[in-house]
């Protein structure tokens, strides 16, 4: 009787101990299984995380690149403008070459005739530089004849005896000075500058200046 009570106490203790260990083993297995699952989840995140990091880096890079691109565009535009502007300065220096051409007489004729056509008056004064005075004197009869054909009325042209300081071409005005048409080579260059400068810049840096 005595022995059986003690034995029962010990048997129950053993059972409890066994239960404690079994529970612990189950919990330990669960801890490991959870860890493995978490590990897998962590590994599975890798491609997504790599994409996030790459996107973040590329976005920073794009922002920097846009800033640099903007600065470069400004620099290129300035360089192109300077080249184009300098080209017109150099063209101004080269203007006398036009007066050295064999067909300059024809050019001068056309410039004076265009001025006459635009003024559309009958009594006009033609001003040229010293070098072109004799040339225009010779041209006056033909100019008057052509002007009469164009305007349909007789035109009287007078060559201003005081030469003016222009490279070439002519300035034509009405006798009373109320209408002046500047068809000097300098004026033609100025007109070309207005027309061509934006286009010249665009041709130099088409990637910067949109059409």
């Amino acid at each position, binding site marked *: 009787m005595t022995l059986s*009570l003690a034995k029962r106490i*010990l048997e129950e203790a053993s059972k409890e101990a066994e239960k404690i260990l079994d529970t612990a083993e189950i919990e330990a297995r669960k801890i490991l299984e959870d*860890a493995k699952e978490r590990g897998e989840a962590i590994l599975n995140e890798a491609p997504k995380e790599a994409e996030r990091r790459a996107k973040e880096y590329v976005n920073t*890079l794009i922002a920097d690149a846009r800033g640099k691109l903007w600065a470069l565009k400004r620099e290129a535009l300035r360089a192109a403008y300077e080249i184009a502007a300098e080209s017109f300065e150099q063209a101004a220096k080269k203007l006398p070459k036009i007066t050295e*051409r064999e067909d300059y007489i024809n050019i001068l004729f056309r410039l004076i005739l265009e001025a006459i056509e635009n003024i559309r008056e009958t009594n006009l004064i033609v001003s040229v530089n010293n070098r072109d005075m004799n040339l225009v004197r010779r041209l006056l009869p033909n100019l008057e004849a052509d002007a009469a054909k164009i305007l349909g009325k007789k035109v009287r042209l007078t060559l201003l005896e005081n030469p003016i300081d222009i490279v070439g071409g002519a300035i034509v005005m009405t006798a009373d000075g109320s209408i002046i048409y500047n068809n000097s080579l300098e004026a033609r260059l100025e007109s070309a500058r207005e027309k061509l400068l934006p286009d010249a810049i665009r041709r130099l840096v088409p990637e910067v200046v949109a059409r």
Partner: protein
Amino acid sequence: MSKLAVLVDETLKAELEAAKIVEEAKRKAEELLEKARIEAQEVVESALRRREVEIEKHYEELLKHMLKEVKEIEAISKLEEKLSYLKKRREELIAWLSDNILKYIIGDINDIEFS
């Protein structure tokens, strides 16, 4: 010693022994759990290390591909080339453009149409 005294004594001894058995089981259980926790931590840490390696591998490939798509980088390169060209050929360009301006002026005059 009376029979009752023996009974009490042996019962007490058994209870003492039982308490020891349970305590020992609890200690072993705690050890087991602690070992499992350490192992679990190692599993997670190892996964984190492998994740970094994997990220690095994917990152390099993705970056290579993504950078090809960044048109600003190519535009910068082209514009830098253009700037360099404009600086190097400045004088030639000015001479060429000024000649063309003169040609334009002459052509413009020759193209005048009279009514």
